[in-house]
């Protein structure tokens, strides 16, 4: 057993986060001590914050299952989201909607002060990783020498048509994060879609600012889990299946895309390492597309990506590797 004070803190969310559960299984297997705090816990666990005159804000709870944020030796910032329980079916222009926005802003302020109270050392991902936007990351990627698809954000049909003419095909995806749209009995999500002439015809002259990219003549997609200098890559053969050729997340469950381990060329690893350093990010899921000419095209990096979808098919045991990384960090003498 490791001494109790060498604590690993896992910041995560309550539901549908099996990666955190699996990493905890491994941390327990190795006998290390951990504490998991979900975003939801801040607003539902009897949280008490004492801000006294001694220059400290003490995060505790009114019951004994409280937080122990002292003596934390390593932190995994896995995920942190607006707790779903804050979300009500609210109407716009209603006082409830304003109240919801206020609760969200209070939650964000509370989270920020909570994070500030935790030792700055040994974080695997950190809250500011979430603030990088796609455009910034793309520009940084091109700066380090990675090939990126030509990208345009515009809001007029004329400009979009000109962009479309320039390329053999274009796609559209969100500028920021994808989201879920929940109706009473269905949930929708946004995917990457191809934009055709017909789609452009159906648009108004002016539309909401939207992101477009030249469509890559795809050989296969690569999903790479980057963990502090180590690469774990998987090729996804999403071509040849009309359902998945634009976005493999339109999963074909009957005949799933082939997903196999991949040896990333050293040169691409070097460029990606440079990018991650530039972004000051020590962990993330990187999306690349290899085109038919053999070029590697950088798409994006997600600090809180689903790495279990790489771990399982490739038998990479990434959850064990994350657990071991956190334990090693917790025991590093500095």
């Amino acid at each position, binding site marked *: 057993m490791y001494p109790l004070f060498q604590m690993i803190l896992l910041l995560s969310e309550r539901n549908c986060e099996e990666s955190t559960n699996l990493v905890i299984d491994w941390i327990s297997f190795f006998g290390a001590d951990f504490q998991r705090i979900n975003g939801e816990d801040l607003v539902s666990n009897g949280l008490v914050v004492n801000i006294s005159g001694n220059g400290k804000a003490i995060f505790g709870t009114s019951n004994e299952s409280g937080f122990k944020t002292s003596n934390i030796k390593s932190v995994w910032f896995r995920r942190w989201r607006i707790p779903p329980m804050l979300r009500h079916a609210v109407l716009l222009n209603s006082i409830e909607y304003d109240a919801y926005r206020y609760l969200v802003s209070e939650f964000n302020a509370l989270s920020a002060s909570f994070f500030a109270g935790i030792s700055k050392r040994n974080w695997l991902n950190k809250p500011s990783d979430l603030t990088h936007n796609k455009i910034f990351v793309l520009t940084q990627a091109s700066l380090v020498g990675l090939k990126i698809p030509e990208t345009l954000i515009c809001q007029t049909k004329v400009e979009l048509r000109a962009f479309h003419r320039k390329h053999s095909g274009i796609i559209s995806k969100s500028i920021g994060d994808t989201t879920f749209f929940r109706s009473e009995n269905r949930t929708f999500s946004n995917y990457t879609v191809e934009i055709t002439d017909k789609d452009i015809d159906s648009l108004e002259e002016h539309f909401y600012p939207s992101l477009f990219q030249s469509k890559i003549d795809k050989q296969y997609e690569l999903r790479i889990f980057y963990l502090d200098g180590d690469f774990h890559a998987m090729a996804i053969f999403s071509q040849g299946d009309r359902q998945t050729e634009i976005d493999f997340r339109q999963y074909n469950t009957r005949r799933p895309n082939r997903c*196999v381990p991949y*040896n990333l060329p050293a040169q691409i690893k070097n460029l990606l390492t440079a990018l991650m350093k530039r972004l000051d990010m020590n962990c993330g899921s990187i999306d690349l597309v290899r085109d038919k000419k053999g070029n590697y095209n950088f798409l994006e990096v997600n600090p809180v990506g689903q790495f279990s979808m790489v771990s399982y098919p490739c038998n990479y045991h990434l959850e064990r590797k994350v657990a071991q990384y956190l334990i090693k960090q917790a025991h590093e003498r500095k």
Partner: protein
Amino acid sequence: MVFLLYACCVPVDGARRSVICDLQRNRPYLIPKALFEILTVHADKSLPDIKAYYEHEVDETIDEYFHFLIENDLGFWTDEPYLYPPIAYDWESPSQITNAIVDMNEHSIHDFDWIAMELDKVGCAAIQLRSYSSLSLDELYSILRSFQNCRLRTIEILLKFSEGLELAALEEIVHTHQRVSSIYIHSSPYAEAHMASRTKIPIVWINTAISDHSFCGNVNPGRFASNIQMFTESMHYNNCLNRKISIDADGHIKNCPAFGKSFGKAGSTSLTEVICESDFRKWWSISKDSIDTCRDCEFRYICTDCRAITSNDSDMFSKPAKCKYNPYQATWIANSYSYEQ
């Protein structure tokens, strides 16, 4: 250009024929031994070189083979085989015990709170509850409540038919206790298969009368599991008994309820101690490659073993008695299963 199987499509050689285990789509594809040879011994050769190696006597057959592989999306042609490494075949788990069986009959007096606590200590991920007598809904709820706050991921339930167990009540159970992954009701006057409305968990009534553990240990193609966990565990360990612990209907702690040897009684002997005993662990490492006949069978890494009901009680390595397949002739004993494409 060489042909590469996708890393998740793994060829396994048998005595008379071979198989490609598609570990992603959960399907074995039978292939002749000649194709196995092409895919392994001649994996680094181009098509013309392969044909030349066989002195152009079987060109058409070779074309047919590759057509079959492409048609079934088992591999692809590439000039860059070094980009696609094989899957590492190691197996590991953060659970000291991955799965447990608890048997019950009308005489059983299990303390499920104790069982849940002990299983949690060893990180048990899955449990199978098998009752040879009927249980009331109250009893079922009480058992499931014991497991409410532990790390188990899945609970499989097998129990005897009784009138009170209606579909709606069982649907409520799987909705309340979402770790329940299936409910099978045996000795039923009727056979019916349902999926619980919200959770899509199977709730199934079967005619088969089951009165004790001897119903288990079946070996047949319907039970093949062609996936990465099964495949890698089978390569290194016994795919039934590895990291398994059982409590029989009388409360004896065993490897399998059908085994004679007891390592103590539930409620007094700690499971953590039992799993350290070398006598208990000796079964874990008996992989298919060390079992008679199985070691020559093409299905060995996707077929669940049984060490309780074997062809020779005095031999730890004898073939499962309920297996009806002869790998040396590639035949299933008459009136058993056929598994041909």
